């Protein structure tokens, strides 16, 4: 399967995100999510990550939005208290679905960048110097968190501080580990960034960054993605205008 080029990735993300911001109907947002984002997530192998995003990020926010605007205030922002409960619920639904689509777009177009192409992609987006380092650090931060979380659990086990490996026990270990997890991940990120700078790793335009450099060309995959995002954008604009 041919990869979309770095610039195409960025353009697709920006257009998809623009559509999500423009769309004013929860029906369009929902249809775009189910009709385009979900099948693409399945095809690109990001479905589990997307499901996790829905459960961990979207669900708590959506619940709060429905409680606040649909129930407690009973109206959308700017309207009088309890003046239009249905509009309040629609506002909560639109905002939640917008978040879902924005997240899906980020996961599909940005978080699927292979690590070996990260540097060349960010560089193609015009990032240089410290901005490039910051961009790279952002992308490697979450994999780093996962490694560190495992290390902390192992360290606590190695001193007999985790009584067993039951799920409930492991969940209880999360709270005391969060602060350290963050400290360790930030510390490692800072040290790595220092090392990248020390080695002038990203100074050269011709720095080799991949064992098998990819030559991007507009293939079938790119054409399909462009088509889907165009349909999405038109639908969002129409829903806005009408």
């Amino acid at each position, binding site marked *: 399967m041919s990869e979309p080029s770095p610039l195409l990735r960025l353009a697709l993300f920006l257009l998809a995100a623009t559509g999500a911001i423009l769309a004013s109907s929860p029906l369009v947002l929902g249809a775009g999510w189910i009709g385009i984002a979900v099948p693409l997530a399945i095809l690109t192998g990001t479905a589990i990550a997307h499901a996790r995003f829905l459960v961990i990020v979207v669900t708590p926010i959506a619940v709060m939005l429905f409680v606040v605007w649909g129930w407690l205030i009973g109206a959308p922002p700017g309207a009088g208290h309890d003046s239009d409960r249905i509009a309040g619920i629609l506002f909560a639904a639109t905002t939640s679905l917008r978040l879902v689509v924005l997240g899906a777009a980020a996961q599909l177009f940005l978080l699927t960048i292979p690590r*070996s192409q990260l540097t060349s992609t960010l560089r193609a987006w015009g990032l240089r110097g410290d901005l490039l380092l910051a961009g790279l650090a952002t992308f*490697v931060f979450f994999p780093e968190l996962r490694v560190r979380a495992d290390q902390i659990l192992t360290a606590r086990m*190695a001193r007999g501080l985790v009584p067993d490996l039951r799920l409930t026990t492991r969940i209880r270990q999360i709270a005391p580990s969060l602060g350290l997890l963050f400290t360790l991940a930030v510390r490692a990120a800072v*040290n790595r960034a220092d*090392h990248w700078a020390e*080695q002038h*790793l990203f100074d050269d335009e011709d720095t080799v960054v991949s064992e098998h450099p990819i030559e991007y060309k507009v293939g079938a995959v790119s054409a399909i993605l462009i088509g889907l995002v165009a349909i999405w954008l038109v639908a969002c604009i129409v829903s806005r205008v009408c």
Partner: protein
Amino acid sequence: MNTVNAAQIATTHPTTVVLDGMNFSGRTDALKKLLSQFSGKRASFVPPEVDHVISGLGATVGEEIQLGRRRQKDEIDAFTAALQMRVSHSQNPMTLSGGEKVQLAILCAYARGCAAVALDVVLEQLDPRRREAAIGAIRTMQEAGASVFVVDNRRSETWECYADAQLVTMSDGASARPRLHTGTIGRLSKPDSVAEPLSINRLRFGYQRGQAILHDIQVTLLPGRVYHLSGENGTGKSTLAKLLVGRLQPWSGEIRFGEVRSQPWRQPGRHVAYHFQDPDVQLFTTSVRSEIESSTRQWSRDPGTVSTIARQFGLAGVLGRHPFEIDSYVLRKRLALAATIACSAPWLILDEPTLGQDDESAGVIARIIDLLASQGRGIMVISHSPDFIARLNPSYLTLRNGVILQRGG
């Protein structure tokens, strides 16, 4: 080897410099100072926390080597062979063993064409054969135009390999250096923590289905003794330790403590406490005091216990500090070691307990281990330092091709 002083080091031509001295004699600062003379050029400081020089950007070892590569592929292949590095290019660099990460860091510094490379007590993490190979590879780097600066506490074990290097002896300097003391060993660990014999029977394990790295581990270890587990980098020593602790569950086989068949993964750390090679992945609290207390709390509520242990490990001056605020790797390593020894588990696995420690400190650690064994605890030491192991007079276990060979009782 020519002996010079730090001010005489000329870095205008490629050179290899070995900085000799005790802990806290300023060797790391001197390394950084030497490296700073190469500002504007590519340089690589490889600290004992080797994780930090793995870029995190390469999903595989191959990609990590390619990142910022300036040398030709055949040069890199030849250097890889000189290092005796046998890591698969498709492996995730974060899953490599400590020694393999050191090799990768040195290889990347070469591949990236660094003008200067500083190795701060990292060669100690290599097995003797690979350490010699790495020192040979340093000569290749110098011939290729790089200056290499080395701090190696085990230099005396490979003295002849550094034949062409300049030696800089750092003055002892720090008179208030935090020293290790054997002290009153009775206060270091749970007094009645006497181990039962540990029997491992036909243990099998691997990280990937169908690819066992431990095939048929079969051995009985007796309490009150020190065992030295040796094996080349990447043979599974740390994996075996994690199986005994209970972090990993074996595919098959059994582990017994005395007559009781045990499933360590159901009660991790109950019978065996594990001191990691890299202290930074072992420390998890917000102060040195609480780090030690998290272990001593299992058997003593006396606040004096923590202070005693801290004094013995030269940590009294940093008790209130966050472990990661302590710049010194040497002190963090001691803290991790102290916290493990202070656990109530009767068996201890100590993975490279003398990393970063000078000869004097290694001697004290050997005495502490000896005393713990004489109290009835069972101890397995993983170390690549022949000098340190000779001080322990241990029974020898060798891990090779997934099985354990035992000699010396």
